[in-house]
C-alpha cells in the first residue's frame, strides 16, 4: 500500500531533488518546503542514501569490452556510405547553376559523375585492401576485455576534432573511454602483444604532438 503524505507532490519529487533533476522553479519550491517540513527532510535523507547505494551498485557493474566498439564499427563498415547533407548538395547545385550555362552545366554534371564513379572505385578498392580501409583495433572474434595496450591522454585546449582524428589514425589509436574527470581519454594503442618499444614509440608520437596533446601516459 502506498502511504500518501500531505505534501505528496513534493514527496514524490525528493529523488529528483537529490539527483539535481528539478527545474529551477521546482527546486526553489522544494527547498522552501524542505526548510519547514521534517517529514520531507527525512524523505530527502532516505533518497540521498538510496542515491549513494545506487551509484555504488552501478559503478560495480562491468564496462563494455573493446569488442563492443569493434562490433559497432564492423556493422558501420557494412552500412552504405552516408550521403552528403541535402543542404550541401543544394548549395553546390545553386553555385554551379549561377556560374555555368545549361550546356556547361551538362558537361559539369558528366564530369561530376565521372568523379563520383572514380571515388566509388577507390572506395571499393580500399574495402578490398585490408591495409587501406578503416580498421578497428582488434577483430570481432578476439576476446579483448583485458587484452590490449592503453594510454591515458588529455587533449590540449583548443585542439580540434579533425586534428585529433588524424593523430589517432596516425598512431592507430582508438578512443575506448572518456572523457573522464579532467578531460582524460583512455586510448587503445595496440593489442596485448604490442612490443614495449612499439608502445613507447606510439606514446612518444602522442606526446610530440603537443599542440594537440597536453598529457599522455601508459594506462592499465
Amino acid at each position, binding site marked *: 500500500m502506498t502511504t500518501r503524505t500531505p505534501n505528496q507532490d513534493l514527496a514524490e519529487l525528493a529523488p529528483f531533488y537529490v539527483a539535481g533533476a528539478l527545474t529551477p522553479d521546482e527546486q526553489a519550491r522544494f527547498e522552501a518546503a524542505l526548510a519547514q517540513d521534517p517529514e520531507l527532510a527525512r524523505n530527502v535523507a532516505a533518497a540521498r542514501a538510496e542515491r549513494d547505494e545506487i551509484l555504488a551498485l552501478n559503478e560495480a557493474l*562491468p564496462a563494455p569490452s573493446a569488442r563492443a566498439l569493434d562490433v559497432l564499427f564492423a556493422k558501420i563498415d557494412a552500412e552504405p556510405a552516408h550521403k552528403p547533407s541535402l543542404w550541401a548538395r543544394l548549395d553546390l547545385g545553386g553555385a554551379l547553376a549561377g556560374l555555368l550555362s545549361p550546356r556547361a552545366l551538362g558537361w559539369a554534371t558528366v564530369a561530376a559523375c565521372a568523379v563520383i564513379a572514380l571515388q566509388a572505385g577507390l572506395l571499393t578498392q580500399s574495402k578490398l585492401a585490408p591495409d587501406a580501409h578503416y580498421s578497428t583495433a582488434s577483430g570481432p572474434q578476439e576476446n579483448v576485455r583485458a587484452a590490449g595496450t592503453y594510454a591515458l591522454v588529455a587533449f590540449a585546449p*583548443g585542439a580540434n576534432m579533425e586534428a585529433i582524428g588524424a593523430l589517432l589514425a596516425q598512431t592507430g589509436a582508438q578512443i575506448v573511454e572518456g572523457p573522464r574527470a579532467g*578531460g582524460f581519454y583512455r586510448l587503445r594503442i595496440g593489442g596485448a602483444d604490442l612490443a614495449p618499444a612499439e608502445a613507447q614509440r606510439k606514446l612518444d608520437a602522442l606526446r610530440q604532438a603537443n599542440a594537440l596533446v597536453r598529457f599522455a601516459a601508459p594506462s592499465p
Partner: protein
Amino acid sequence: MTQDGAEACDDPHLIRRIAEGDRLAMQVLFGRHRVRVFRFILRFVRDEAGAEDILAEVFLDVWRQAGKFEGRSSVSTWLLSIARFKALSCVRQRRDAPYDEEAAAEIADEADDPEIEIAKRDKSAALRQCLQKLTVEHREIIDLVYYHEKSVEEVAQITGVPAATVKTRLFYARQKLSEILKRAGVDRGWP
C-alpha cells in the same frame, strides 16, 4: 579544451557530424556514453556479451538515424530510449524460449537471505542488498533518476509512461524498498 573546443565536441554537434558520416565523432560519442548505456542494458539482459551486442545495435541506430535527430531531447535520453527498446525486444525474444531464466529473475525476490542478515550490521550494505530485490520495473526507474540523473519528463520519455506515473511509480518503489528493509529488521526512518 577551450570553451569553443568544448562546444565543438558537445553531443548535438557530434550527432550533426555523425549524420555526415564522421567516424571520429562516432568514436567520441561512443566513448562518452558507452559505459552508462551498457550498464542500463545489462539490467535487462543480464549477460555481458548480449549487452555488448545490443550496445553496438544502439549506436548503429545512431549512425543510421543521426540525420533525423531533432534535438527535442538530450542525446543521452535518446540513447537510453533506443537502448531500452532494444533490450526489452531481446528479453521478449528470450521469453519465447522453453525455459526462461531471465523472466524468472525479473520477479522480485523479497525473501530475506544470509547476505541481508550479515548486512543488518551495516545499514548502507543492507540498503544495497534490498535495492537488488526490487522488480526490474522499479529498479529501472530508480537507476534512471539516481544514476542517469534524468528528470521526470526524461524518464517519461525513456519509459514511455506519463510523467505522473513516473512520479507515483518511483514513490511506490521507494516505499516497497522501505518495506523490504523493515522485514529485514532495518528501519531507515522513512516513510
